[in-house]
């Protein structure tokens, strides 16, 4: 784990774990679009913050985020040190994709969004202040109202969409790159990995970004 290969292996494993998390997160978010004034979403949010199995998994998730971010910083610093004097003229666009060369910048965009996002929703959900609603005698935190209000602010919707664009390009390279780092490069599987990776990179961030846009125009 101390070698460059070991560090990259950790990046690939945590990266793929975070990819799975995106699917779970998205499936939860899509409930925001149901026409039930947020009931399904609020019930789901309570389940996600109280179920012991989910809570345990969420700690693995926090760890995966932290490892992915810190190891990215260590690797980037190390990679910069490997070329102390740069070139006067480069033509990198002829031999590699833009996203593959800018994973750090794309990751930073996602990180900035993540901090604001956690403060607005995750922190509020756990420690408030937040309104309560009652469904059939049971009390629920009205996270839907919080989200609804946030998504009515234009700056937040713009930030959300920009971050999802960043995520799109991050995944465009990251998804298939993770498999290469894990040692999977095979004529039989490469087209599948490439296709799934590109489809995932486009569809998932686009669906994430669509939610705040739809809610913004609904409240407009």
């Amino acid at each position, binding site marked *: 784990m101390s070698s460059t290969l070991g560090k*990259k292996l950790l990046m690939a494993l945590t990266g793929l774990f975070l990819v799975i998390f995106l699917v779970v997160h998205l499936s939860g978010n899509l409930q925001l679009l149901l026409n039930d004034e947020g009931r399904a979403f609020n019930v789901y949010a309570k389940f996600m913050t109280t179920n012991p199995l989910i809570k345990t998994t969420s700690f693995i998730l926090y760890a995966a985020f932290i490892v992915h971010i810190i190891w990215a910083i260590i690797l980037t610093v190390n990679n910069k040190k*490997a*070329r102390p004097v740069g*070139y*006067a003229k480069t033509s*990198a666009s002829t*031999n590699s994709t833009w996203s*593959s060369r800018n994973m750090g910048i794309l990751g930073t965009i996602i990180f900035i969004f993540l901090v604001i996002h956690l403060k607005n929703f995750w922190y509020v959900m756990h420690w408030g202040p937040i309104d309560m609603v009652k469904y059939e005698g049971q009390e629920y935190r009205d996270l839907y109202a919080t989200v609804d209000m946030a998504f009515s602010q234009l700056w937040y919707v713009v930030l959300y969409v920009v971050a999802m664009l960043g995520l799109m390009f991050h995944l465009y390279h990251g998804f298939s790159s993770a498999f*290469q780092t894990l040692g999977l490069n095979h004529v039989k599987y490469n087209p599948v990995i490439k296709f799934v990776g590109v489809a995932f990179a486009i569809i998932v961030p686009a669906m994430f970004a669509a939610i705040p846009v739809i809610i913004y125009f609904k409240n407009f």
Partner: protein
Amino acid sequence: MKITLKVWRQKNAQDKGGFKTYQLDDVSPDMSFLEMFDVLNEQLLKKGEDPVHFDHDCREGICGTCSMYINGKPHGPKQTTTCQLHMRSFSDGDTIVVEPWRAQAFPVVKDLVVNRSSFDRVIQAGGYVSVNTGGVPDANEIPIPKKIADEAFDAATCIGCGACVAACKNASAMLFVSAKVSQLALLPQGQVERKTRVEKMVSQMDEEGFGACSNTGACSAECPKEISLENIARLNREYLSAKSSSDNV
């Protein structure tokens, strides 16, 4: 052809260095890029100036010595070595920027000459097969499938020029190391030292100060021998399997 050259000049490893511009008025399109430098150096010598130092040896594309970063690409616009690049690949009146390989592990010696001993030390760490002397084995005594032999040969075509390091945004040596690990890991002769080899070579690679692999693919795209990225995946596999099962703690 009229060519304007912007060449990196650096007296020694300590010197800061900088670009110097030279004009060449009568360049033949059939000259190789190195021959153009020979012409330039003759002019400089006649004027009593220090000629541009650059590495070259076989001049037939098989030794990997001619390291030049030409117009933002190692070995210039064609996917070949600098000695096999001809002036017909450029247009009359072009300005060409020539720089040395840039990497912590490839320190500049003078002008365009860099010290690539770090590659040698990676090979010394494990890029070999130990054999006991004895009678010459019969040909075809060890059966090797054609496909495996071809894969090993493709990896073995790496000439260690360092274009992969020069092209990589992280100055990573993964393509070089992976080719050298692959050619031996694929063949029966390489099995005895298979695990220790990959562990030692990767550890030496890190020690030399090469960066990590971001899988941009720039190395393979610029490699004059078209070494495939499959080798890097194989290196990752070899390393993972060695680390999880070898006796070295």
